[in-house]
């Protein structure tokens, strides 16, 4: 069972984002992490491999040289090897998907896992685009994935209910939280990660066709007000919602 899990380097979700005059973000003092959903996907990949009893988990990232830090973290969690496709990731997810699909085409893994979205661009598109470009079937937003008899059986979260879907391998699955509490890397894992292979090559991104014209910080919301204390404030609150905000 050979699995590729795609991870992205993103600012920690607790970080404040400051926009620079040049339209970028100020990275100083910002901690970078594996995007949380990608961490769930890595946990899912490790569990599928463990259940199969053999195989490899390859962590793949498209990004600049700094992404090696997150790939090392993935190796410490238990991935067997890693590949960094070096390039500048912009707002066009199709370009990222192209680079990943090219690598998938060479490696031909049984299963390709993605986090359902990255928490920086919030586009929720690269996994499914990769599946289309690689000609693989796909399931999105899986809360769990189990491989049995050459098929991935996924529990997909869909509007209040859970769809149980099966898809023949090779396949792409995008992962949501479910029960995927990511494991902590052991000290042994961290030491071993230093010796595991991390390949680097240029990402075949092609030309991105979505470009950022400008980036800004959101406008401050108008000053609100404290309507009152406790249950006694409720009639006035309801009046304001009806007559001022007109939302009831």
């Amino acid at each position, binding site marked *: 069972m050979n699995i590729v899990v795609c991870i992205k380097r993103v600012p920690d979700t607790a970080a404040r984002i400051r926009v620079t005059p040049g339209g970028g973000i100020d990275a100083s003092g910002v901690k970078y992490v594996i995007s949380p959903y990608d961490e769930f996907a890595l946990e899912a990949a490790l569990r599928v491999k463990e259940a199969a009893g053999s195989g490899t988990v390859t962590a793949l990232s498209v990004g600049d040289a700094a992404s090696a830090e997150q790939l090392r973290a993935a190796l410490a969690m238990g991935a067997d090897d890693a590949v960094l496709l070096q390039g500048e990731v912009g707002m066009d*997810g199709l370009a990222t998907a192209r680079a990943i699909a090219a690598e998938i085409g060479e490696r031909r893994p049984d299963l390709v896992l993605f986090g359902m979205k990255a928490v920086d661009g919030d586009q929720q*598109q690269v996994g499914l*685009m990769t599946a289309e470009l690689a000609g693989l079937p796909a399931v999105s937003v899986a809360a769990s994935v189990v491989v049995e008899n050459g098929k991935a059986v996924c529990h997909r979260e869909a509007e209040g209910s859970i769809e149980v879907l099966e898809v023949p391998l090779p396949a792409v699955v995008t992962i949501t939280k479910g029960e995927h509490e990511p494991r902590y890397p052991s000290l042994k894992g961290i030491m071993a990660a230093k010796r595991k292979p991390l390949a680097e090559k240029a990402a075949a991104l092609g030309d991105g066709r979505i470009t950022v014209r400008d980036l800004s910080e959101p406008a401050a919301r108008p000053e609100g007000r404290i309507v009152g204390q406790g249950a006694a404030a409720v009639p006035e609150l309801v009046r304001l919602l009806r007559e001022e905000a007109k939302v009831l």
Partner: protein
Amino acid sequence: MSNVLAVIEVKDGAPRRVANEVVTAARALADGLGGEVHALIVSGGGASPDALGAHGADVVYECADDSLAEYQSEGYTQAVAGFLDGRDYAAVLFGATSQGKDLAPRVAGRLGLPLASDVTGLEVADGAVVATRPVYAGKAIARVHIDASPALVSVRPNVFTPVEARRPGAVETVEARVDPSAWKVRRREVLGGSGDRPDVGEAPIVVSGGRGMQDPANWGMLEELRDALGPSASLGASRAVVDAGWRPHAEQVGQTGKTVSPQLYFAVGISGAIQHLAGMRTAGTIVAINKDPDAPIFKVADYGVVGDAFEVLPRLAEEIRRARAG
């Protein structure tokens, strides 16, 4: 070509409320480009298209097949991509619902076109489509230029307020170019609730609870408030209570959950961590109920009540019920 296509989402035989928002967004874009709005309904048949003409659709294409009675990723991708084959559009708009977030990237990948997801604004600049997209869950706002024709876009629910703009909405039937024998994903079964409430990412009214609710057993009070607000209200949750296992992750609002823009958002017992605030600050009206007068949530709230949620909630549900009945 300057026409805009709105891909319509159908539930229980009728376009969903987001469909009117997508058509409204398409109308504004088409007016900027000097083109028509076409709406595409992919379904099992019989979906009533009346509201689409009222919101600005010049033509409604019905693309029906028995195999498309329920949403299914591969079939709908084939149907939409098949429809677009040989047609020329300046832009194709989807709703960024759970269905749209599955369908739009697949259609984009199949056609080799880029996609701007979950946009909150659209404009035409120098003849090209420019979209506004919150990034980092709304901690920053990007304006992006889409250099592709058609420009594929999914629009965030509840942001594009439906506007009446009566057009013919003439219905034309088109063949559904689908091949079920090529579909590889099989649905074994569906577990759990029927999902009669909208997803928190799509609901126009959201009632969210946090750690201040003290115990999952107290969620009945939030459900009471939600029910008082009517069938379009849904429950949300802070990251803290999801991490504690009190509520499912599907309800989580914030950067590691759903980024929401409802018309009305209640934050109850939620102090307001930065990643939560980012995920809901674009709501129309925000109401915060919290014991701590210094909680950061009050900085983004339009209306705040300082006090014990357990005293405020029952009274609030009762007053809202009365207000809505009257």
